């Protein structure tokens, strides 16, 4: 079924329009929920970013005492946890929430109340994380990976890890409910005539991402539950002294957490596939190839988790398998890169802020992709595993990839969502601060790692000092850039000029449905459902 043009209204809250705070608290409108996801995401982005600046300040020179070692470990753990579970995943869910139903010509998500629950679960989840910092023993300090036995009660006795587990449980539940909602929405609520090969690339990317969430996140939930019962009820899944095995946790954790990389980057790739054609005034190149390669990444992504465990002593033939699978995943990723280049090749490029971010995404993601191939090679991986080389690699993928894409998408849809235009000059300035600061911060980390500097250390030996000075300087450049971003967004929300329905002047071939309705779109998006030809 793909929704007739007389589909009944799906939200029940609009009979008496609510105002003020209750408009947000009780809403089931996918657009308002999407906006709340974005706000929540940027709150945690700001907090996680401040933590990162503190960490870099501690690491500016060897032997500094800005942070105590235990505080360093807590902030480092929360930085990773916030950026992954409370910024990247929710903000992508938020933009998906806002844009996907409109792009497929629907009035809302399939289950609007479930949608609201998905969002509101994140509030107690985030509060648990934040409050753990102020309790005895502080927040979880075992990294976002929380390997036992370090995360077991014996070595982390305080409530920090318990709150971390329960917070992630709620965030995971939010993700799973959201995933069901997205999968059903894209499957069943497409406008008449929108066949599979007419679904916009961003919606395909979100759909495939949500399928990954549906298969991967329950495994994380299971592993977290096992860790919790180990801590609370005396089980010993991961406790070697009672016959358990800490390496089992690593398998279960990475079975979720490698696909999680794709959960964080595929929707961004969908945004890039949307933004590049718009600002090159040219149709997306190789649409079917992009859909197939996205699905391919989704599947192969489940077969590569072992490359996080090459130095744990797992069987060599297993290591070789994971090595091959991790190399193979570079092929569909490459297909995307070449297709994007072919998309802008010969176009009429307008270098507005979203386009700068989209092109910056390609330039940086290629670096993360290349180092990713090297890390698939077991012997080289063993050499640099758990060093700053991996920190560099993952930030080129998640900062150079996901975050650049999030900015591309956010600037692109800002006029649609807010009904106002942002300041273009400030946007471009923000891009240059981000692009330069990003490379200053993370490029030197490749060198530190190759030299042998381990990650997650609160201080380091003098031979790594020079590159660390550069990285800390770069992080401050990034900090200034992000200030420009927040100023631009807040000012423009308040005082920006009004946006028309299509401020980007799309050509017909790149104009998705959200640009056919007003900015912001009316309640329930479409008076009559569009027919796709």
């Amino acid at each position: 079924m793909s929704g007739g043009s007389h589909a009944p209204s799906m939200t029940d809250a609009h009979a008496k329009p609510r105002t003020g705070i209750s408009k947000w608290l009780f809403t089931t409108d996918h657009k308002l929920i999407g906006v709340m996801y974005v706000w929540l995401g940027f709150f945690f982005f700001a907090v996680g970013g401040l933590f990162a600046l503190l960490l870099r300040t501690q690491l500016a020179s060897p032997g500094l005492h800005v942070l105590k070692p235990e505080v360093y470990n807590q902030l480092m753990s929360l930085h990773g946890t916030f950026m992954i579970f409370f910024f990247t995943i929710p903000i992508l869910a938020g933009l998906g929430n806002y844009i996907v139903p409109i792009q497929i010509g629907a009035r809302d998500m399939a289950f609007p109340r479930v949608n609201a629950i998905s969002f509101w679960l994140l509030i107690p989840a985030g509060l648990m994380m934040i409050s753990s910092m102020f309790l005895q023993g502080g927040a979880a300090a075992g990294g976002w990976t929380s390997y036992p036995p370090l995360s077991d009660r014996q070595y982390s006795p305080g409530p920090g890890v318990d709150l971390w587990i329960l917070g992630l449980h709620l965030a995971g539940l939010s993700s799973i409910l959201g995933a069901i909602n997205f999968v059903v929405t894209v499957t069943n609520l497409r406008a008449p005539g929108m066949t599979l090969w007419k679904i916009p690339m961003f919606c395909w990317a979100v759909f495939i991402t949500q399928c990954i969430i549906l298969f991967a996140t329950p495994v994380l939930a299971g592993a977290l539950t096992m860790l919790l019962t180990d801590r609370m009820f005396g089980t010993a899944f991961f406790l070697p002294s009672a016959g358990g095995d800490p390496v089992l946790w690593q398998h279960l954790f990475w079975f979720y957490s490698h696909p999680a990389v794709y959960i964080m980057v595929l929707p961004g790739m969908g945004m890039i596939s949307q933004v590049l054609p718009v600002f090159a005034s040219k149709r997306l190149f190789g649409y079917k190839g992009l859909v197939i390669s996205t699905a391919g990444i989704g599947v192969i992504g489940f077969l590569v988790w072992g490359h996080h465990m090459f130095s744990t002593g797992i069987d060599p033939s297993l290591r070789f398998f994971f090595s091959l699978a991790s190399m193979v995943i570079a092929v569909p990723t490459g297909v995307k890169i070449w297709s994007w280049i072919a998309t802008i090749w010969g176009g009429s490029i307008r270098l507005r802020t979203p386009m700068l971010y989209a092109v910056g995404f390609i330039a940086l993601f290629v670096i993360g992709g290349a180092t990713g191939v090297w890390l698939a090679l077991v012997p080289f991986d063993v050499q640099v595993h758990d060093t700053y080389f991996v920190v560099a690699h993952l930030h080129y993928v998640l900062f150079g990839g996901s975050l650049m894409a999030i900015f591309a998408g956010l600037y692109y849809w800002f006029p649609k969502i807010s009904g106002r235009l942002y300041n273009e000059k400030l946007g471009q300035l923000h891009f240059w601060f981000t692009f330069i600061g990003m490379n200053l911060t993370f490029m030197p980390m490749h060198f530190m790692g190759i030299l042998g500097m381990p990650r997650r250390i609160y201080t380091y030996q003098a031979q790594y000092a020079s590159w660390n000075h550069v990285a800390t300087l770069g992080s401050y450049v990034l900090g200034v850039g992000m200030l420009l971003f927040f100023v631009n967004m807040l000012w423009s929300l308040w005082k920006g000029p009004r946006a028309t329905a299509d401020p980007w002047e799309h050509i017909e071939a790149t104009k998705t449905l959200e640009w056919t309705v007003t900015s912001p779109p009316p309640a329930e998006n479409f008076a009559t459902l569009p027919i796709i030809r």
Partner: protein
Amino acid sequence: MTFATLRLRHGLMAAAVAVALVAAGPAWAWYLDPVTPVAHEVRTLFFKALALTGGFFILAEVLVLVAVLRFRARPGVPPATFHENVRLEILWTAIPAITLVILAGPTFTTLKYMETVPKSDLTVEVIGHQWFWEYRYPEHGVVFANEPLVVPQGKIIAADVSSIDVVHSWFVADFGVKMDANPGRVNHTWFEVERTGTFRGQCAELCGVLHGDMHIEVRVVTPEEFDRWIEQKKRGA
């Protein structure tokens, strides 16, 4: 691509990396001056990977830059309209795939080489503690902690790595050795250091508050000096 051009690319790439990394770090680093056979192999594989992937990387970055500089919107110049080319798409799927198959070969042989512990001249047991290392020489009945590990030059050392509490990782970058120390398991690795000297490393798996202070020092001495040292240790000096 002929073997000679591959060799040339390999060499050029290695030279470029060497220049970049000399600027980056001290002359003793493993990629310039490997001190164990494994580190030699890892370096060779790294340079092969650079040579094989470097071309794609440079091509992608150059094409992006050229596209952005060349195809800016100009009045009166309409954008191109092509949006698919099956032959091109097959090509850019197949060529990287073949390249990766080529790269898988040396990966496998190097992995096998690292993995197979040869008949050893000396066994040391490496045991991680929060936050120091304990070393045992079972063949000599010597046990100590919080001191440098001492091994003879040019001998094959088998290291049995484990932990008493949380997961640690014994990592000496110069040797190309990193092995997780898991409680309840013993992992096996090996190294043979080609020259004498003091080599430093540190724990590479987050293991609690003082993870950053869990240093490793390995003193590599001549076999004669090692014999004297181990005799002294046995007498409890």
